[in-house]
């Protein structure tokens, strides 16, 4: 059975979804349309890069809202990580990123004064399903939004009784295979995109990566530490394997700025952290190989 592949562009990246087994009744065209629409809808809900996105609209002024069910996971995760990281992981980083030039027009020109994000309690009061917006703000879900939409797409596939598939959204991946066959995934060398620095083997898991190597301007990357207002320099790339893409994505982002021990007791994950001096740190049970000199 040849895999069926869907390729498209969305949320600013290239998607490839490979379906490895399917029933004779599988309606490819119809189904791929459903997936593309779902991703498009996601962007329309969450993107801070769209002026008319649902979140931009509701956070544009103070107000009280009841959130749709699907927002629970991502809001829960943001508030949990906010607590765990002492405010380093925060959706309020949006305005800081915008000040630094990472705005909806990608002006990439930093303002003279870059604001620190406010404390979350000053701006939001979240108790699902209720969200109180205390003052006008912008929220950024970049730290794990891509992971979350990958999970949502995986759910659509599972609901359609497709159990062997691979979702690749610009190098963040979720792979499931009923046949228990692991997939070897190269860990891209941030210094040379024709190379990998190791291989991870995953099955029924997600691997997400985070690196500033391709999104750099001036002194900044798309990651800015809200405490120091600088982009992390010590860590140059991270990879995290977890059961869900939202968790893998959130951890991959966090490990640039927060010590792994903050998360080790709380979550099940494996990691590789690559530092600016080209050394790496990997978890004890990392399923794969790192090429060492």
């Amino acid at each position, binding site marked *: 059975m040849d895999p069926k592949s869907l390729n498209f562009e969305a949320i600013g990246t290239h998607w490839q979804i490979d379906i490895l087994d399917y029933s004779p009744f599988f309606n490819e065209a119809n189904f791929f349309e459903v997936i593309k629409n779902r991703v498009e809808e996601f962007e329309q809900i969450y993107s801070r890069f769209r002026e008319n996105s649902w979140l931009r609209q509701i956070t544009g002024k103070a107000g009280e809202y009841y959130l749709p069910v699907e927002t629970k996971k991502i809001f829960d995760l943001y508030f949990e990580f906010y607590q765990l990281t002492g405010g380093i992981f925060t959706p309020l980083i949006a305005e800081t990123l915008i000040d630094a030039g990472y705005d909806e027009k990608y002006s990439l020109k930093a303002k003279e004064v870059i604001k620190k994000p406010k404390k979350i309690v000053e701006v939001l009061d979240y108790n699902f399903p209720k969200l109180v917006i205390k003052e006008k703000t912008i929220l950024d879900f970049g730290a794990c939004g891509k992971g979350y939409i990958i999970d949502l797409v995986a759910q659509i596939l599972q609901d359609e009784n497709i159990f062997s598939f691979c979702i*690749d959204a610009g190098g963040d991946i979720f792979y499931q295979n009923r046949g228990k066959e692991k997939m070897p995934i190269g860990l891209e060398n941030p210094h040379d995109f024709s190379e990998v620095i190791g291989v991870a083997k995953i099955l029924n898991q997600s691997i*997400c990566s985070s690196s500033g190597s391709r999104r750099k301007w001036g002194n900044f990357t798309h990651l800015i530490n809200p405490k120091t207002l600088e982009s992390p320099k010590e860590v140059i790339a991270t990879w995290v394997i977890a059961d869900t893409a939202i968790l893998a994505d959130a951890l991959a982002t966090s490990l640039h700025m927060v010590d792994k021990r903050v998360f080790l007791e709380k979550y099940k994950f494996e990691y590789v952290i690559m530092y600016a001096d080209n050394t*790496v740190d990997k978890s004890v049970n990392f399923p794969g190989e790192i090429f060492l000199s």
Partner: protein
Amino acid sequence: MKKQNSYLPNLMILSAVLTLAFVATGCGVTTPATNSDNSTSTVSTNVNTSTKGNGLGNGNGNGNGNNASGNVKNTNTGSSNSGNGMMGNGGNGNGMMNRFAYKDGTYSANGEYFVEGKEVIGVSLTVQNDIITDVSVTPQARDKTSKGYQLMFVDNFKSQVIGKKIADLKLGKVSGASLTTQGFNNAVSIIKSQAAL
């Protein structure tokens, strides 16, 4: 991988590993390096002592007087000169001229230390042409805190990574940042063309 070899005095194995660990720890970027935790300081103490002894197997009393005794048990069978304080010549007791001090192979040992009871850490290393080419440490602590420290210790092994060409490997996918925000990439090319960046 689990080829056992009995030539090396076992303390030397652990010494070498711990020395390596110590060096690695010293240059780590996010090294925890707290002296308040027992197991970490224990490790450092052993390293210092055995480094002075040139790693030549005279490690009988390593770490004595600390809360860890640095006892090492051999997991190899039939070992000849394990930890007996001999200047072991790398175990080449057969009078043959040998270019290398250590025989190639993978060596394993368990290190024991005491923190309100015995704790064990497993160490395995591979030697090739007198160079340690691979090290692995297996935390075996029973106490939860000790296990945490052993994991941290393991975490601090670090080496430089090297890249291999994607074309030379069989990969299903590549995980990284190369396929990233197109809007961003477009903006960068525009700005570059305007020479403003």
